[in-house]
């Protein structure tokens, strides 16, 4: 059952990821990415990260993808944007990197086989104990607000900087009339 759900979610994730890159209409690409985010959330649920699955759907599918769709429809793009000339170079580079990573993962799995097996044994042994410990959301919250409190505050600063930056970039006339070559072609 776990294997089946992994292969379902993994297969759809790979398929939609390829579609995001391959489709020529940007709106179809965004919809494919939306489908991928839902399946990544499903994969998170099979890995017992329920809180992250919900956050994934709310933040990625709810906020980020809607922003993308707004921009794609606002710009009213034509359909005829083609690939770069060196498309085969890029694809072969990607396949080379994929072969490399698969090779490394498989050989490392063989070399440290007992270690991984021990880890999974620990995880299996910890499973009954985990059912006694608090739920996933509570565990994430405990780690986030105690051990990782300072990174959490830094993350809020990043969001503030992004908000100010986005407003500054798109607001007309905020930079003054002499705003460089971007403005004079208007």
């Amino acid at each position, binding site marked *: 059952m776990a294997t089946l759900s*992994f292969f379902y979610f*993994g297969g759809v994730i*790979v398929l939609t*990821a*390829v579609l*995001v*890159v391959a489709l020529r209409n*940007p709106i179809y*690409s*965004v919809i494919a*990415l939306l489908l991928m985010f839902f399946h*990544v959330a499903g*994969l998170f649920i099979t*890995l*017992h*990260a329920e*809180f*992250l699955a919900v*956050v*994934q759907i709310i*933040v*990625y599918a709810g906020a*980020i993808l809607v*922003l*993308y769709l707004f*921009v*794609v429809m*606002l*710009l009213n*793009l034509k359909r005829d*944007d*083609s690939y*770069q000339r060196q498309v085969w170079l890029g*694809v072969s*580079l*990607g396949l080379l*990197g*994929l072969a490399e*990573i698969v090779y490394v*993962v*498989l050989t490392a*799995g063989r070399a440290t086989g007992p270690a991984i097996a021990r*880890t*999974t044994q620990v*995880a*299996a042994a910890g499973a009954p104990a985990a059912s006694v410990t608090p739920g996933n959301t509570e*565990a*994430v919250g405990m780690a986030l607000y105690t*051990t990782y409190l300072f990174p959490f505050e830094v*993350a809020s600063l*990043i*969001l503030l900087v*992004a*908000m100010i*930056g986005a*407003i500054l*970039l798109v607001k007309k006339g905020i930079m003054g009339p002499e705003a460089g070559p*971007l403005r004079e*072609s*208007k």
Partner: protein
Amino acid sequence: MVPLSYYMILSAIVFLTGLVGVLIRRNIIILLLSIELMLNATNINFVAFAYYLNNIAGQVFVFFALTVAAAEVAVGLAIILALYRGKATVNVEDLNMMKW
């Protein structure tokens, strides 16, 4: 039980798909979508390791990666809008103002 290496290979496939997308596409919005693909690949890896090593820290790091992704989207789309307002194109080959 699914081995950990399956998750790593899935994550590698998604990451390299994003990388190839950045290399071969001309539309700058698709380039940003490909960066989202790469960030999601790292998230899959983080959550898989958090589960198999029985450590919640991996999930906390996904939270931070999500924050950075949201900030990147906001600023990146603002840059695209500013570019489109000036140059009326989203093709990266037409954006060569800084070429000497």
